[in-house]
């Protein structure tokens, strides 16, 4: 029973009127991992997550969360998952501490609320009514409410949107600790660095489908080629360098004294370039491997134009 995936979505279709928000989406999330769902606005991220949470009934396909149907097995599933909505979810007049304690009361073995308040830096505003909390404080309270019931799996919809850098770090630390304690996390985000920092697995969604999925490293390795950059004295003999390099490589001097080598960038290429430099009496200053970031991959896959 422990071997089945945390989330298994097969061929999910969800329409709003004539608009198709999710169009045959497949997504598998392994237990105890952190999965980041990336995508432009309107790609279908929230619709997918809210279907997993049991809010929306699929128009097609199947959704299983912890082996259960989120709609028909809702009573069994709800205590086992934690949910953080994109915004809201708290009575305007409820105090932060009061609301967290109340959420804890709905669970059988909740976490110590004092500990969570401290961990998420909510101690100074515990008695403040929700409507007077800052956006970041509201986000952190919603995160605390999602984990207080000691769930097996949490869904976080843009957990760090609108947070300052310190609060963002605190959230990241919490997600890492959830993972190391065996809690699965599915989060949606617009921040590539967040996905690179936290996720075991990244699913890029566009047009209601998963267009790429893998670990951040896998995604960055695929797609566009990487390059090696170094500086030296201007006017080095590129033809000689090229001769030393493997077949699929290129070498260029885009600016005087700056050299760029592309190809299968790995230890072998680095060694070849270094030994060529040694043979030619060149000191390669500032030698660096330029890897593609997740953002490059994301933009390459989803397009650079602004969506209307």
């Amino acid at each position, binding site marked *: 029973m422990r071997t089945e995936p945390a989330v298994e979505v097969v061929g999910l279709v969800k329409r709003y009127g004539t608009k198709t928000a999710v169009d045959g989406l497949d997504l598998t999330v392994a237990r105890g991992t952190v999965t980041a769902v990336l995508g432009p606005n309107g790609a279908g991220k929230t619709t997918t997550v809210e279907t997993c949470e049991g*809010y929306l009934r699929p128009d097609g396909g199947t959704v299983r969360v912890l082996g259960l149907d989120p709609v028909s097995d809702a009573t069994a599933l*709800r205590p086992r998952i934690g949910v953080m909505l994109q915004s*809201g979810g708290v009575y305007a007049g409820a105090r932060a501490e*009061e609301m967290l304690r109340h959420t804890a009361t*709905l669970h059988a*073995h909740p976490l110590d609320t004092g500990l969570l308040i401290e961990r998420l830096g909510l101690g100074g505003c515990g008695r403040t009514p929700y409507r007077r909390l800052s956006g970041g404080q509201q986000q952190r309270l919603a995160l605390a409410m999602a*984990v207080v019931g*000691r769930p097996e799996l949490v869904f976080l919809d843009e957990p760090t949107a609108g947070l300052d850098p310190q609060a963002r770090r605190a959230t990241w630390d919490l997600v890492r600790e959830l993972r190391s*304690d*065996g809690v699965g996390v599915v989060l949606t985000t617009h921040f590539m660095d967040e996905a690179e920092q936290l996720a075991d697995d990244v699913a890029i969604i566009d047009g209601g489908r998963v267009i790429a999925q893998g670990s951040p490293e896998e995604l960055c390795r695929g797609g566009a080629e990487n390059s090696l950059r170094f500086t030296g004295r201007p006017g080095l003999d590129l033809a000689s360098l090229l001769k030393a390099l493997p077949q699929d490589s290129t070498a260029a001097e885009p600016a005087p004294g700056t050299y760029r080598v592309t190809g299968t960038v790995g230890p072998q290429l680095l060694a070849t370039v270094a030994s060529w430099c040694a043979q030619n009496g060149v000191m390669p200053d500032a030698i660096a491997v330029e890897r593609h970031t997740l953002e490059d991959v994301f933009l390459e896959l989803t397009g650079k134009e602004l969506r209307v």
Partner: protein
Amino acid sequence: MTATEADPAAATGTFTPRPGAAPLPRMIRAQAALETRMLLRNGEQLLLTVVIPTLLLVLFSAVDIVAVPTETAGGSGRAVDFLAPGILALAVMSTAFTGQAIATGFERRYGVLKRLAASPLPRWGLMTAKTCAVLVTEVLQVALLTAVALALGWSPHGNPLWVALLLLLGTAAFSGLGLLMAGTLKAEATLAAANLVFLLLLVGGGVIVPLTKFPEAVQTVLGLLPIAALSDGLRGVLQHGAGLPLADLGILAAWAVLGLGAAAAFFRWE
């Protein structure tokens, strides 16, 4: 750790999963307590449920602004004997209808109902808790208004059981209508409409203005309103010591069935 890695019981982190729903009675009790605190903490709600009914009771008992038919009164013949039952009806309406509609409308708008739907508390548990919160508020209102009315010289008659029955059916009728409004209209529209309806029913529902002041044709229609049935029923029992007010209870029951039925059918959670 290698041998026990897959065993969740062996892990001992802070967040190590240990999911489970609290027992239902505990969830509902906690939710009812929270809902009640939210109602009593809200200034606008208190204005509606406590300040306005109390002010109306005191003002109209002391000053002869609207000529109330004291000549038909049993007992002392004082204005307060006519007013107190109407104000009790108003108190029920203010909490079960106006207050509940506005609060629930904004809870829906701000995702509170949505977030609670993902918690272990079932929907019917939430509705039960809301009803408990309304009833607790009403008990407090009735206690306060009764004390004020008694201080003004009120001498109530009749069977308290019939009074309780009227108040309960009235609560059911107004809750259904309030939830119907909150679950179908936008929060701002609910706010405006609930206040408008409160004002209209206050004037046209026999609360402080006797229905006999209206033209006869209008009286018949107004008499079918839930607020009119409730104030008329309460007045019959409390002012005149009447027996079981079947006609008024029938009107309230019909509104309750219609309102709660429509709310169940059309309520949208987000």
